[in-house]
């Protein structure tokens, strides 16, 4: 069994060993003990904070697996959400602009693709640091973990923006070379992609970006073929996240990362299934039902005011129901009792 919950101080050692094995593409997951501790502390403070306007809060969730025999628990994944991207600066990205070109004299018309450095994603809420262990990749809990952030955001709208985005790692080769970086950022930074990511700490909100990156649109047809080919393409490690997010309602074509050209998925909350399709249902405590009829997977969370918890539930269709049947074990994990409300959304 799995549960998604806010990170706790006790999780730090587990996160550290997790960080040791994560893939190179995931540049938003902290790696060093120090930075992990900072991230956990910041998350604890964020969950505890009274928030009127989203600011520097950052919420870190973990996916915990619970051995049904022994009750042993271990961390199997992480996912985070920043309340307001670039909150101590400006979040820079490239906007995909299409410039229409029409010539009356020549009777021709075509469009030219250009990348414009923009700060439009500033103050969006930013999803990041999504990672699950290999054993979870094919399970509904991967979707649960990704979506828990949005379930929490839907319950606590004052803590987040109306719009969300997720940068996914772009294509790099085995040596860590990024064709997009080599065609673009390198000309200004005069250093390798990984060195640049290191000096900037994976951030996209630093003054040095204004100082160094191009102020004028980059006409895509002028970029070398290999750089064009990877624009908006995900690193293979991001495929699961990409699929989960697009299924959720995120759209991929409007922005790309200024460093590696990876896609930035974004959406208004009105366009996200977690916000538009979730139901509030009453809890009906019941023993595990016999396996009758078709079942679908749901993500279910408690009301989160105290201690947010989310689990998956394989259940008959709840479409026209007013209550959902949960086993006593699930109720305990979710910290809910008969008659409490929970939020459900199909995975």
């Amino acid at each position, binding site marked *: 069994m799995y549960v998604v919950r806010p990170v706790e101080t006790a999780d730090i050692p587990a996160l550290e060993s997790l960080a040791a094995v994560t893939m190179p593409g995931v540049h938003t997951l902290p790696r060093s003990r120090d930075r992990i501790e900072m991230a956990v502390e910041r998350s604890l403070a964020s969950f505890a904070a009274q928030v009127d306007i989203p600011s520097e809060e950052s919420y870190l969730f973990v996916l915990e697996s619970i051995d049904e025999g022994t009750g042993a628990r271990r961390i199997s994944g992480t996912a985070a959400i920043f309340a307001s991207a670039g909150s101590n600066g400006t979040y820079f990205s490239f906007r995909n602009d299409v*410039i229409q*070109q*029409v*010539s*009356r*004299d*020549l009777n*021709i018309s*075509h469009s*030219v693709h*250009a990348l414009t450095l923009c700060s439009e994603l500033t103050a969006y809420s930013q999803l990041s640091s999504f990672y699950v262990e290999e054993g979870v990749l094919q399970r509904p809990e991967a979707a649960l973990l990704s979506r828990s952030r949005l379930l929490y955001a839907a319950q606590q709208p004052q803590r987040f923006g109306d719009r969300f985005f997720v940068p996914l790692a772009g294509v790099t080769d085995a040596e860590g070379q990024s064709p997009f970086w080599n*065609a*673009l950022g390198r*000309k*200004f*930074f*005069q*250093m390798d992609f990984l060195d640049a990511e290191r*000096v900037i700490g994976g951030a996209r909100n630093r*003054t*040095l970006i204004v*100082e*160094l*990156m*191009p*102020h*004028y*649109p*980059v*006409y895509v*047809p*002028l*970029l*070398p073929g290999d750089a064009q080919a990877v624009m908006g393409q995900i690193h293979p490690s991001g495929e699961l996240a990409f699929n989960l997010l697009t299924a959720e309602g995120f759209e991929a074509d409007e922005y790309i990362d200024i460093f590696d050209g990876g896609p930035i998925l974004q959406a208004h909350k009105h366009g996200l299934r977690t916000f538009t399709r979730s139901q509030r249902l009453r809890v009906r405590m019941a023993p595990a039902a016999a396996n009758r009829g078709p079942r679908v997977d749901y993500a279910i969370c408690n009301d989160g005011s105290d201690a947010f918890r989310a689990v998956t539930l394989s259940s008959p269709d709840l479409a026209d129901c007013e209550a959902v049947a949960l086993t006593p074990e699930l109720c305990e994990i979710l910290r809910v009792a008969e008659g409490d409300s929970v939020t459900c959304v199909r995975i």
Partner: protein
Amino acid sequence: MLVVRAINENDLDGLFALASQVGTGMTTLKADMKMLGDRLATACASFAETIPPEERDYLFVMEDTASGRLAGVCAIKGAVGLTEPFYNYRIGTLVHSSRELDVFTKMETLYLSNDLTGSSELCSLFLHPDYRQGHNGKLLSKSRFLFIAQFPHLFTEKIIAEMRGYQADDGSSPFYEGLGRHFFKMDFHHVDDLTALGKKSFIAELMPRQPLYIAYLPQEAQDVVGQVHNSTAPARRLLEQEGMHYEGYVDIFDAGPVLQARVSELRAMRDSELATIAPDEDSVHACAPASKEPTLVSNTTLRDFRMIVTDSSNANGHIDLTSAEQQRLHLRAGDTVRTLPLGARKVP
């Protein structure tokens, strides 16, 4: 013997014959009777001063006085870009630096501009292959500077000349292939023809408007920015001797350089002088200084401007010309001429 002179109404057939020799690459001199006839009419009106200075197009021909055949042509336009926009790329510099990272990057950029709007333009220089020898090329090219020095009030502050850009052996333009083709989606020569026909609004419609970093272009395209076509290199040197400089403007299609100068800083403005034709007497010949270098000599008449190159030189306001030379200038002893040493004085 050769004379360079203002074109006149009788030169149309000769001009057409010359234009037929030009081949591709010079968009302003096509063997098209209608276009040439219109241009000739404008040129005649220009020398007659019946149209305003900014509309004028002073066309000069080099005539072989022995045969009456036209050996070359060149022109000065009063002002460019006043009816159709005149586009260039201007090369600028942007510095990107970060103290934090200790990075200092100097980048060259291309800006689409109409900055040269209103400049006077040297153009349409063509010398028939049969006459490519001796001082003929210099005479033809430099005649225009003597004209400007004689009539500076007819010209704007700035004078320019567009030089044909670099082309590969197969006639393709690496700059166009690296930049323009992405936006125009047609052949270089096709684009060139369209501009020759005056169909230029497509430039505004299709050209990228935002400044471009040259570093984005393919290396082959970067390498030829401001480089002339191999066959144009001598013409470029002649203009540079006269005080014209490449100041960072290039053609938007082939990145050929635009040479430019302030009229007041042309060598001809500084070094040309008026002189009187000495009487044709033996004593005068004896006193004339031994000429070190040929001299360009012109009359001072706008309508019938004529110029030759001579071995004589201006000595204290007098110059010794043979009667044949005087005849080619339509002058005689005692008349005033303007002189300019053919070669540039070396800066000490």
